[in-house]
């Protein structure tokens, strides 16, 4: 056996061993691959689906929810209403910091139970300061506390949304009524939007959300509160499955202090317009140029 062929044989042996070791090292993937469905894999971007294709997708999401979570749910594709631009306002003079809004969001939007996930973070601020640096979210005492005031923060549905600009694949965009949405079936989970958001409004599904079947809110929409897949980013949608059929958002209804006001910015007689025109209003971090649709105001 000459040197060359011996070397070739050795190399072949090495390559075989290497291939075997490689297969062994990625063996965990064998439990992952069957979880992928080819329809989901090949699914087009939300905006590219025709009505019929959308129907198929919605029924598939319902079937998957039944299979994986044991819950019968209805998933709809609810479109923005013509002539509506949503706006939200929150009264800092009356908010007591009870976090009922965060809890309502948690239940309404089918968030992961173990992490108490919610799109709303309530900051306990120090009177005499608007510095977030002096705020805390982990307070655990009777509220409102002496010397404190409270500022719930959620997605501001910015008109100049840095998260939308950041996304490399248009998996998140601003809808005609001003709501910034995510196609949870298109997002690749790069989390650039999460880095871009100045309001900590986005959440990433680090694990598959876990919710007992009986706690699942069955009234769902594709772009809002359906149970999100693992590995994608999600965010507040102003409860579009409620608000696009005229209802108030869940966080607003839960507020015991009546601090939250929601409505159509295009309607001059709406409550939200009255607040913007008649009270002292500010937006958070106006200096970053995001042009939010979420306004904070004070009693006059």
């Amino acid at each position, binding site marked *: 056996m000459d040197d060359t062929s011996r070397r070739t044989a050795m190399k072949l042996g090495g390559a075989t061993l290497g291939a075997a070791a490689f297969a062994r090292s990625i063996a965990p993937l064998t439990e992952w691959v069957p979880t992928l469905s080819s329809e989901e894999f090949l699914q087009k971007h939300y905006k*590219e689906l025709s009505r019929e294709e959308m129907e198929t997708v919605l029924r598939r999401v319902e079937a998957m929810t039944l299979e994986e979570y044991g819950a019968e749910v209805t998933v709809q594709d609810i479109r923005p*209403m013509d002539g509506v631009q949503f706006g939200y306002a929150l*009264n800092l003079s009356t908010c007591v910091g009870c976090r009922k809004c965060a809890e309502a969001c948690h239940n309404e939007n089918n968030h992961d139970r173990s992490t108490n996930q919610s799109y709303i973070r309530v900051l306990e601020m120090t009177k005499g300061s608007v510095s977030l640096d002096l705020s805390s979210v982990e307070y655990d005492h009777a509220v409102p*506390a002496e010397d404190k005031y409270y500022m719930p923060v959620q997605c501001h549905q910015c008109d100049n949304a840095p998260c939308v600009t950041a996304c490399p694949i*248009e998996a998140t965009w601003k809808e005609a009524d001003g709501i910034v949405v995510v196609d949870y079936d298109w997002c690749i989970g790069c989390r650039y939007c999460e880095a871009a958001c100045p309001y900590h409004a986005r959440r990433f599904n680090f694990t598959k959300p876990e919710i007992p079947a009986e706690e699942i809110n069955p009234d769902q929409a594709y772009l809002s509160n359906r149970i999100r897949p693992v590995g994608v980013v999600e965010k507040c949608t102003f409860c579009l499955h409620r608000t696009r059929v005229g209802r108030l958002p869940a966080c607003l209804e839960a507020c015991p202090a009546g601090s939250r006001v929601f409505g159509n910015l295009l309607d001059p007689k709406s409550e939200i317009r009255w607040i913007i025109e008649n009270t002292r209003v500010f937006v958070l971090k106006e200096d970053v140029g995001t042009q939010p649709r979420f306004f904070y105001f004070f009693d006059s």
Partner: protein
Amino acid sequence: MSSLVLLLALVACDRGYSDPSRELAPAAPAGEPQAITIRKPPAVGVWKAPLSDDPDRDPDLPESATCGTCHGPEPELEIVVEPGEPFHTNIEVEHGTLTCDHCHDKDRTLLREANGTKHDFSEVAQLCAQCHGPTAKAYENGAHGGMNGYWDLSQGPRTKNNCVDCHPAHAPDFGQVMPVHPPRDRHMGNH
């Protein structure tokens, strides 16, 4: 260079929906706007606490009563309390410098504004408004007070809270509550 600008402009313009039928939902049906219902307290003041602090009180006495039960023009009960004897001690009035007569009519069956205008208990908001003008204005315009239902009244009704739903008239301070639903993010490691 100009071609690059053109290219940028082309790509930058928003790509809409491939299927235009999915673009927008039709405008809300222009039906008759539905009502905003304001929750109302009962038309007469109901005193919910025990009528007497005396543990040996007459068991026939009702658990609760309206103000007029004792104070009306024709009281249903004989007032057995001697003047000066402690009674109504569990009515805690924590409402600035107000005393009973600031809001209650002499016989206590109606509410009375400073200018003498009388209101049913159910019209309490108008009484409150005589002092809390700005808040009343905010309330009227939807900037104060909790609500439920529909923001779009063409699609459904709405219910609004009344002043005393959240602010007990005798001690209107909202008070303190224990917060619910603390954040339990991954990094907090307690799940």
